[in-house]
């Protein structure tokens, strides 16, 4: 058998072996065996000295070609096997990505505070100060300065927790308006404020009454404040809270500290005004009270009622939350059932 046939046979045998080998170790064995110093190709090349001189280059070149091809086959196989190892490792590391993630510990702000924070930032954006006064208030500020003298029938509208004849748990956040009006220096600009906070009334707690709840009063006093400004401000606020498509309407009402006084209805945000159980089929929902500051209130704060005037409004964050989220029991806000509170962790 001549060299060429021998080499070809060698190639055939080993090329298949290389392709079939399935471990890197075995492949390495084959490489050493075939291409090593004691390997068959080397021995073929060594045997070339017995050949005729003109045969040698031909055989040599052929042997080299076989060696290169085998070498390439080994390299190819090696890459394949290495990839297989990586693939196997990755496969073994595969996880069920649908398993739940680790729990994250995070608390939820109270929904009423969320409502108040939102309103505060809305009004701060329009240049209002945020002022919170004392919860134990003087009768003087809570009532007298708000044009509700002792024996005024309107005191019946606000059953009050008294501490003594002169001190009480504030029944509204308006006393802070009185306190601020008293101090405000109008030479430094208009008075624009909201006063959010807790108020107390002598009510038996039930689904729609609570002896403690929240209020936010607003007040703007300057030389040229109109009722149209009040309407525009409340429209903007209602659209901010209840949706950009909302409209409002004002109805006459009575508060001792404003004249004219109005109740404000917002078009129903459930049905858009067509009528549904939320708006009791009227298309409107009463959301707050407002009006133009009564001259007696200005005078009580030593403000010249002939020069200055303005508007005031008062809203209930509890009521806002109840309306906006369809909460039917005001006590839910104060019993603090976690299952109730934590549902408001998502923005909605």
């Amino acid at each position: 058998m001549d060299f060429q046939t021998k080499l070809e046979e060698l190639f055939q045998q080993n090329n298949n072996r290389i392709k079939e080998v399935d471990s890197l170790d075995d492949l390495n064995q084959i490489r050493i065996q075939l291409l090593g110093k004691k390997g068959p190709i080397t021995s073929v090349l060594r045997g070339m000295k017995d050949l005729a001189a003109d045969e040698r280059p031909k055989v040599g070149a052929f042997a080299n070609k076989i060696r290169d091809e085998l070498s390439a086959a080994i390299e190819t196989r090696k890459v394949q096997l290495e990839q297989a190892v990586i693939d196997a490792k990755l496969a073994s590391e595969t996880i069920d990505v649908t398993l739940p993630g680790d729990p994250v510990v995070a608390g939820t702000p109270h929904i009423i505070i969320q409502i108040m924070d939102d309103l505060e930032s809305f009004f701060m954006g329009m240049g209002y100060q945020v002022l919170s006064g004392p919860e134990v208030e003087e009768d003087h500020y809570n009532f007298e300065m708000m044009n509700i003298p002792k024996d005024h029938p309107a005191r019946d509208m606000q059953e009050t927790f008294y501490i003594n004849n002169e001190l009480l748990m504030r029944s509204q956040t308006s006393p802070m308006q009185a306190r601020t009006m008293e101090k405000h220096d109008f030479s430094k600009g208009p008075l624009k404020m909201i006063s959010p906070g807790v108020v107390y009334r002598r009510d038996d707690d039930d689904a729609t009454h609570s002896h403690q709840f929240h209020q936010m009063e607003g007040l703007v006093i300057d030389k040229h404040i109109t009722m149209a400004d009040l309407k525009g401000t409340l429209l903007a606020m209602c659209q901010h809270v209840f949706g950009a498509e909302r409209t409002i309407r004002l109805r006459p009402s009575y508060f001792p500290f404003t004249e004219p006084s109005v109740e404000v209805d917002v078009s129903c945000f459930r049905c858009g005004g067509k009528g549904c159980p939320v708006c009791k089929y009227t298309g409107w929902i009463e959301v707050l009270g407002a009006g133009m500051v009564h001259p007696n209130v200005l005078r009580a704060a030593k403000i010249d009622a002939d020069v200055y005037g303005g508007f005031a409004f008062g809203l209930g964050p509890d009521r806002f939350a109840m309306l906006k989220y369809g909460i039917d029991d005001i006590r839910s806000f104060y019993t603090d059932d976690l299952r109730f509170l934590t549902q408001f962790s998502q923005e909605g």
Partner: protein
Amino acid sequence: MNVSYDWLKELVNVPVSPEELADKVSRTGIEIDGVKHPDVGLKKIVVGKVLTSQPHPNSDHLKLCQVDVGEADPRQIVCGAPNVAAGQTVIVALPGARIADNVKIKKGKIRGEESLGMICALQEIGFNENVVPKAYLNGIYVFNEPLKPGSDALAALGMHDAILDFEITPNRADALGMRGVAWEVGATYAEKPHFVEKPLTEGTKPITDYLSAEVKDAQDASSYQLRVIDRVKVKESPLWLQRRLWNAGVRPINNIVDITNLIMLAYGQPLHAFDYAKLGSQHIEVRRAKNGEPLTTLDGREHELDDRDIVITNGQVPVALAGVMGGLNSEISETTTTVVVEAASFNPVNVRKTALKYNLRSEASSRFEKGINVADINDALDAAVAWMAELGGGQSAKGTLSPTAIEAKDVVVDISLDHINHVLGTELQEDQITSIFRQLGFGVTVADGLFAVAIPPRRWDIHIKADLVEEVARIYGFDNLPSTLPTTTMTIGEYTPKQKRIRRTRHLLEGLGLTQAITYGLTTAKAAEQFKLQPGKPTRVDSPMTTDHAVLRMNMVTGLLDVIKYNRARKETNVAIYEQGRIFTKTGDQVRPTEIEYLGGALTGQVTTKTWSQDARPIDFFYVKGIVTHLLEDYSLTEPVRFVATQTVAELHPGQAADIFVGDERIGFLGRLHPAFAHDHHLPETFVFQLDLDALFVAPKQEKIAQPAPKFPAVTRDIALQVAETITNAQVMDVFRQHGGAYLQQVKLFDVYSGKHVAEGQKSLAYTLTYRRDDQTLTEDEVTQAFDRVKLALESDLAAEIR
């Protein structure tokens, strides 16, 4: 105020349906809470005439009646009413009728006898018991005038009317009478009301032959008018008057009392009628009650009066509480023949207080306390006496006793066109405003944009410009006002530093896993005093509604514990909550409590429950301490924060509680509930903390100045030391702080061990010390020197054994 649509239409042209009227008036004047149609759901209810009434053969109380209902033959109806009798005109529900509560009437047999319908009581066709005449309360209603059998009984009873529920605010008491309502509706629709007056024909006998009258203090009764009518017959009122009353929600009683009520409903002027014969004198005196003076009112209740009550007396003893309720001793009864009728204006404040004090709020008192139309006092009185003469057949004495009187005058308010437009933000024209004032029935003269508006006494709520602006706004229509935003000089809207701090604190705690709670500021006397951070006395409310909400809280913890209890009862066992709010405390002679911003937290159960990937992490002291520490670090306090073991808070575990100091000031505490406290209050193992935020707000803060990131590497050394059990981490840290050297940047405790590998009474603590220089890389020698020094100090100061 229940307003009858039918009655209203007699007083003013109403161009719309009751529902439309309700909507319009609600938008322009007075809120109308609803419109009720008394006949809703009723049908086949007719007038019947009872021809005969025989005992039922199989019953000792039922009767067999033959009733003419306008058909060819009378019907047999079985009736159980005790007052049914032949000859009566009654209400009959025919078979197929619907009566109250949607009950259907069917033909049937009652104890073997056929019954073709039902003779009805008023309640059975939907009347409120409160308006049913007492004579018919426990039986069928009997018409007191002949009506055609088979005719519509509901029409006879006034049930096809519509009743509008006017929610009268205190300023609109003018609409507490139908005439006022007619003015308001008239103003809304630009219709002029038309009232028919009842002329009074007086007799010849002067009233002074009957009576004299005196008012001690004109402040108490600024107008006091009396008339006398003689020889009246007290009896049931005619049907039309009963109808008018019950549709207004008033129970018919007898003609005299009913007329006083009719006039009150028509004019808004309360009247009172006394039985002249029972007065026991010929003199009426209006004065203050004497302290302790007794009076039994018409409702049969006895009162001990005081000198803030205005009373009507016979010169000796009270016969009525002025403006509130009459006395039983001078009540009109069937035997009354001479009636004294009173129309007055009483001091609103006294009336209100008296009515409140004796729980005697009446239709009369609620009108007097809000004011009345002083122009109508005598008109109302005269109309009442005229009706009494007509319905009671009596003769009015000549003249009116009038010890005090008010001259009713228009109030003139000047207002300019500019002012109205300025306040409303409108561009109304002179003629528009003039016509609005005219529509309201006000007199108006105008010159150069200046209106002089004459307001009649019936609108006593209007006396200043702002009141007129409101009238213009509502009649013009709030819907027609433009919507603008205030144009003022710019103002800055931002939180104060304290407000920012409070909000940042809240957000931090929420990030740390605590949910915000809001609990009540009023609590029990006991809870108020628990978990006190600073000494102080509680503040209690005067006459609380319940002991649960009687005292202002002095801590922010007990409310949160209630929340834990509430949640645990609902199987929510892992609770981490906080509340930010105020506590109220007094010291010394303080009357008004100081309000302090506090922060409270309460945690129980597990931080996280066991999941497929991690074990449960129970809440313990150090978890809560970590939260508090992180929060306090955020305040960048200048002075060091220290946690010192404490036993001063009785509600806390004596071995697991720490006072929190900033410098030398105690600003809070944290700890585990005392097991005994937890047991008594049915609470689980719970950890709480409480901080005085106001103290933190004012505590000095470090100014933030940026530091570059360190340029040179740090070197760490671990050290394990064995010390006596009683040595605290704080003591060890003090040694590190004092002897650690200038390059010691950080000390971290990474192991605490006591057990079988250390001697009894000893424990092992292991720390990692981090050294670094800011100006160059530390040498090995520098570190070793510093490390050796601190080791020596530990050995000498704490008898530590370095391991």
